[in-house]
């Protein structure tokens, strides 16, 4: 089978073909060859078993997450001491916040991911941090500490929405006052 613009290039399977710029083909082996579609647990059972298997690990999260948060707090105090944080400090803090964002909800603390996400969004793209911007970061870290202190695990539906909105408003207010994200209209 050949179609306009495509050229068969290979075996007799009828699935290898190319066009002027691209070759399209089936890989020599496929993951489905190793996975029978029956004979395993139902999706619900598989997920239940997975949660059970991870139960201990999830239970241990808070212990080491508090240590990670303390590292972030110390890093923040160290680099914010002079009142101005440059690119290296920003990158270091972003990486730490990014890790915390990914881990929080993965281990059952959804609010940690909400706050971590807000912190990443606030830090990302900034060339330097000063004054009120450092205060915003401090607020985020203290908020995460409060989540652990009060054991605010799980979905936290209403609180999560409120917190997300509140942090969004805080970021927007600071961005507006510093013109962050508002480009020079004369630039292309």
């Amino acid at each position, binding site marked *: 089978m050949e179609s306009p613009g495509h050229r068969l290039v290979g075996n007799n399977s009828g699935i290898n073909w190319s066009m002027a710029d691209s070759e*399209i083909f089936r890989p020599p*082996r496929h993951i489905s060859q190793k996975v029978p579609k029956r004979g395993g647990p139902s999706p619900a059972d598989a*997920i*239940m078993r*997975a949660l059970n298997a991870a139960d201990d690990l999830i239970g241990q999260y808070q212990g080491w997450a508090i240590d990670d948060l303390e590292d972030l707090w110390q890093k923040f105090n160290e680099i914010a001491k002079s009142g101005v944080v440059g690119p290296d400090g920003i990158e270091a803090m972003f990486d730490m916040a990014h890790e915390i964002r990914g881990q929080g909800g993965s281990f059952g603390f959804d609010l940690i991911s909400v706050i971590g996400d807000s912190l990443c969004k606030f830090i990302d793209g900034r060339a330097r941090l000063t004054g009120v911007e450092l205060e915003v970061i401090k607020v985020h870290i203290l908020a995460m500490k409060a989540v652990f202190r009060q054991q605010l695990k799980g979905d936290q539906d209403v609180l999560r929405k409120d917190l997300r909105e509140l942090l969004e408003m805080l970021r927007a207010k600071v961005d507006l006052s510093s013109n962050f994200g508002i480009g020079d209209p004369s630039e292309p």
Partner: protein
Amino acid sequence: MNDTGYNLEGLRVLVCDDSRQIRSLITSFLNGFGVKSIDDAMDADEAFERMVEFDPDLIITDWNMPPTDGLEFVKRVRISEDSPNPYVPIIMLTGYTELYRVKQARDAGISAFLAKPLSAQALYKRVTSVVDDQRPFVRNDLYFGPCRRTNPRSNYMGGERRKA
């Protein structure tokens, strides 16, 4: 218990993340799904080395893991001459969820994208979707990896309008 789902026992999965806790969480989830053979690596270089010996059927990798990020790892697996298996399915696991990041990962040749925070449900869904993924591979001057068209029209056999 009814054994009506995917049987993942024979699958070999390589997990790459610089966070030991996240590696352990993914391993626990995969064990729960029935996967027996799991190996892990803490960075891209180690993962590439593990590929040679372990020969995974699936790789789950983080994006942000210095010194070599997950994106570079995906490109190395796909296009490096010494890649043990350039066709291996790769799930990119990351907290980066902005659209441009998703496109970057897709253009590097990933098979699927999975956003952190991670859940057992989302991981199961991604693993089984990769098993069901019948997209062909595409090779041209700019890209090598699974066809980036993900809808059924990727089987379209009419005139080609897209260029590399």
